[in-house]
């Protein structure tokens, strides 16, 4: 009995989320690891392509790290506990596509780091799956689905988002990463939902064929 309970607790630990949080903390503690992981445009051009995936673990200050870990921790924890599909695939896709998009769309960015794009995408993914759940949870998820795009649009359109750079942060916030994270999450959700619906239709068709045939 005790063994089964222990197994259930282990099963509930959000493994992907914990892995990302731990690696983020380690790369923040060790500057050597951070320098290998960080998105460095010139290094990528020289062939250090792993930065495309690893740059999201690197953070520029303790506050930057704390905020992003909190946000990603909440999103990842809910997703993994609710067994929403393909979270690890989503993380890899978001990490790669956010970095590639920044590389193409923001040519002035020499260095990039931070988990917020993935956190934004994860929370949006969680909210999208939440729309097919019970009513109160669905309401909260709809609220997130409604607010996040408005917030991202405001960040992109309003130059005020650059202002925290003044005297507080040593980097320029990149709302583009939030946008890409959210778009990747939406596409991932739509593909999964389409597959799920197609599978459901197929199984319903098989059942009906079996019943009438």
């Amino acid at each position, binding site marked *: 009995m005790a063994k089964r309970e222990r197994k259930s607790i282990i099963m509930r630990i959000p493994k992907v989320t914990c892995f990302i949080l731990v690696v983020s903390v380690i790369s923040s503690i060790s500057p050597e690891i951070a320098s290998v992981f960080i998105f460095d445009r010139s290094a990528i051009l020289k062939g250090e392509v792993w930065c495309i995936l690893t740059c*999201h673990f690197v*953070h*520029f200050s303790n506050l*930057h790290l704390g*905020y*992003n870990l*909190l*946000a990603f921790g*909440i*999103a990842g*924890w*809910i997703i993994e*506990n*609710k067994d929403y599909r393909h979270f690890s695939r989503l993380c890899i896709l978001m990490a790669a596509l*956010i970095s590639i998009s*920044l590389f193409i769309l923001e*040519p*002035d*960015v*020499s*260095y*990039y*780091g*931070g988990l*917020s*794009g*993935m*956190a*934004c995408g994860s*929370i949006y993914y*969680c*909210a999208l799956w939440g729309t097919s*759940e*019970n009513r*109160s*949870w669905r309401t*909260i*998820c709809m609220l*997130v689905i409604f*607010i*996040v795009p408005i*917030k991202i649009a405001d960040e992109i359109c*309003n*130059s*005020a*988002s*650059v*202002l*925290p*750079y*003044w*005297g507080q*942060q*040593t*980097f*320029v*916030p*990149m709302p583009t*990463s*939030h946008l890409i994270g959210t778009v990747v999450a939406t596409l991932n959700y739509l593909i999964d939902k389409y597959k799920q619906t197609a599978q459901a239709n197929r199984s319903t068709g098989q059942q009906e064929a079996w019943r009438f045939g």
Partner: protein
Amino acid sequence: MDFRRAFVVALPLVAVISSVAGCVAVSRHHSSSVVQYLYPEQKEPVETPAIPVLSLPLKVGIAFVPDASDWQNNLTERDKMDLMKEVSAHFKKYEFVKSIELIPSAYLTQNGSFANLDQIRTMFGIDVIALLSYDQSQFTDEGLASITYWTLIGAYIIPGEKNDTHTMMDAAVYDIKSRKMLFRAPGISHIKSKATPINVTEQLRMDGLDSLKEASQDLVRSLDEQLALFKEKVKDTPQDFQIVPRGGYSGGGSLDGLFIVLFSILGGYWLWQKGSGKV
């Protein structure tokens, strides 16, 4: 005999009266004007400022506005550079400042206006310039101790000249391209001193410099306040200022307070539902 006695009694009295009556207040005035430099021979400024586009981090220049009159100017180029260094040392601590150029006076022409600033922008590669101007008035009055000047030796050793030096220094920070003044900060100083008639001009020169240094320190303090107000202004009226990052910067994926609140609501609600067994 009576005449001699009367002379002995009257002489000091005449001396006192003449020395007191002879108190002459001498004044000197030095100044430079930003308005005269930027808008010469114009009764009304006709430059229409555009919306400033500030590329962060900024390249800042610091320069003294050319003096209104060249005569009796006690502020040398070296003094100006020293004062500019003091102000620039203060600017350097801000992360939004990339570099600071001290512009020597030789590069600023009398009544140069924005055409001159455009030349400086090209030569030094700066975006924003802090134009330093000053207004200094010095007054010299003779005090009661000046009575000792009658002894001749007193004029050498008794400081009977009372000097007052009032200085106002002003930094007007302009975005050169848009011709818009971003903010200004004043610094004031009042110095009193005494001198003998022999070294009064030297003392006045020293007072003038000390007063400018004191005013520049006050200016640096008010620059802090004005910068804080300017940041608020930029945040409150984003339509009046455009902030763009300069190339080659570090970008960070970071979340602000609203995102954290949103994430926390979602996480908190899920925890509450889980606790109450609804999920």
